[in-house]
């Protein structure tokens, strides 16, 4: 039972480089989310999706893009990395029904230098 799998676990990017953070879940959850956690801060929502083909912005979407072509995958794309995007990124998912809490992945620690 893998749950939510995030890759890579760590990455160092140079300013201006691009990368995709991968997120996959095997629980057939409709809802998926991307959060970032800055040092000493809570989690802030970047983007979310309520189903394949449907995405929407969260609180801090600037500098990021997402897609949701399948129920299982929800990749997060950074096009032009900036030092302000240094953070730990968490992907999460939940069933579409009820008020169940999220299942989180273990995170991707990204440093932009």
């Amino acid at each position, binding site marked *: 039972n893998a749950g939510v799998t995030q890759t890579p676990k760590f990455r160092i990017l140079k300013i201006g480089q691009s990368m995709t953070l991968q997120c996959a879940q095997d629980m057939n959850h409709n*809802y998926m*989310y991307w959060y970032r956690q800055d040092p*000493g801060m*809570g989690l802030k929502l970047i983007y979310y999706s309520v189903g394949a083909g449907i995405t*929407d912005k969260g609180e801090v979407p600037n500098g990021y893009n997402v897609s949701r072509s399948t129920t299982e995958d929800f990749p997060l794309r950074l096009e032009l990395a900036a030092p302000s995007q240094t953070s730990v990124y968490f992907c999460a998912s939940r069933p579409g029904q009820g*008020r169940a*809490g*999220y299942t989180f992945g273990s995170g991707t620690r990204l440093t932009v230098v």
Partner: protein
Amino acid sequence: DQQVKQNSPSLSVQEGRISILNCDYTNSMFDYFLWYKKYPAEGPTFLISISSIKDKNEDGRFTVFLNKSAKHLSLHIVPSQPGDSAVYFCAASAMIKAAGNKLTFGGGTRVLVKP
């Protein structure tokens, strides 16, 4: 505008004693509240939740209290154990289907339980 606040960034408690974590919210549309626990280098894990129709929910050593009029909730851990040392996040959501039932998180409280 921080809609969910945890005003104590850290808490130190002796093993066996009670840990009390506090959380305040401002959005009156929030109707469901959750606590998550996070160990270093891991993702947050769900701990306990409470609906706004209740004022208390208990699960083993963990109890969450909700005071809607004060827009305040608290998590009690009794008795505290060294394995409870972690960061605890309070989170809230409003039942708006179109909004994806997004969770809004507080800044977290780091708990250290001393043996």
